[in-house]
């Protein structure tokens, strides 16, 4: 599976995201409490740039007035029609079985591993980051 370096770890602090093009595809990379997740920036509904929507929580209630707010910072709401997606799995809340965005494995790799990994394909971001922060860590996204 081709792997792409998409960002320097420091560049996407917790709660932040980066939207970029990898291999002709627009992808959003999210840092949720130190864990990285990557989502295709194309909403399964009408194709809106889903990664540019609010990153928010999931509101639950049994009846009006009894609100429970959970999973703050883990729910992505499409900037067009507001469908909600789980940033960790790409799953849509309204119909989890049928509707999901594509999510890609994302993980953090140390610089030495990057240099020694022959499978790694470099993404568009690589030119600058690879060169300047050789001892730092990079975010890698695998694109099947």
């Amino acid at each position, binding site marked *: 599976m081709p792997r792409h370096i998409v960002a320097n770890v420091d560049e996407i602090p917790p709660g932040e995201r980066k939207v970029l093009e990898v291999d002709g595809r627009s992808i959003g990379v999210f840092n949720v409490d130190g864990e990285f997740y990557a989502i295709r920036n194309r909403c399964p509904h009408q194709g809106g740039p889903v990664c540019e929507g609010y990153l*928010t929580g999931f509101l639950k209630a049994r*009846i*009006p007035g009894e*609100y429970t707010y959970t999973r703050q910072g883990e729910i992505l709401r499409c900037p067009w*029609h*507001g*469908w909600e997606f789980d940033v960790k799995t790409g799953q849509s*809340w*309204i119909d989890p079985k049928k509707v999901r965005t594509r999510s890609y494995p994302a993980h953090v790799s140390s610089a030495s591993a990057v240099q020694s990994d022959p499978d790694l394909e470099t993404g568009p971001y690589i030119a600058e980051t690879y060169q300047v922060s050789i001892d730092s860590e990079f975010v890698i996204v695998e694109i099947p």
Partner: protein
Amino acid sequence: MSELYQSVIDTDIHNTIPSLKTLYPYLQDFWRDYLEESAFVGPDAHDYPAGLPFSARADSKSSDGPPGSQMELVRSNTIDAWKAEIGILTCNYWTTSIHHEDFALALSSAINDWQIDAFLNPEPRFRASLVVPGQNPELAAQEIDRLGGHPGFVQVIVPVRSHTLYGKRHFDPLYEAAVRNNLVVGIHYGGASGHPPTPTGWPVSFLEEYTGMTQLFQSQLLSLITEGAFNRHPDLKVSFIEGGFTWIPSFIWRMDKEWKGLRHELPWLTEPPSAYIHRHLRFTTQPMGAPPDPVHMSQILDQMGSTDLLMFATDYPHHHFDSPREALIKGIEEPLLGKIMAENARNWYALPN
């Protein structure tokens, strides 16, 4: 006529009082005097202009009172004529539209006691709807608890033109009482809240107002679902009476679409709105608002997404058709026909086999 159908349950037959004097024996003295002294003539509604042929079939008229007020005539024109097993009376004397709430309760109770004496006791095939002061849900609950255990009452009836939308928590006492007494809540065409009946003001013609009431049914349905009325009262059943039904598929498409994007504002809705409609709502068949092309009617029936939703109604004494044959929904066959003509209502109102 009735050989057209295996069995028939008519879910919308209007009965009403012969005159306010009919209620005197059922009212306390001070309310009787209040009535006399104030020259009260009835709730301020013009649901059916008296001079319009549509408002009353010719055979419903009698010199003894307004159409729907004489039990024998109602019986012969409805359940006898149709060989119906059961006819559900829907008294649309809108005490909900009277601003004086205690007076509205007193009138409601008097009407309900009169319904028992004049319709339910003499004719066991009739069931009735409890008239309540819907503008005050606490008082309405009081009346529901007073008579809700009577086997003749199967429903509480309120007008679609309410002061406040029916989904609001304001109505909880009414809904709790209905559920407690195993009664359906019937929301019926008409009423007078004082609000303009449309979102764009007061219509000019009666036709505009009459057809526009369907939009108000849509608003009430939106309210019941978005406010979580069915989450708060999981056993609540609501019948929409005389509001039409061909609008339901398009309404569902819009509402389910809205929910997908605005769910976060209505987190108690764990399913699309259509699921609540299928579980908690039923609709009577008149006025049908039928498309001229029967193919379109079959499409609509299919698009409703459930065969349980429709319940046959004549809407007596209002004039929708000249014979039972005309009342048929063209192109409908068994088993759907049997469900619409009787079985859906039987299940909904828990009527005997």
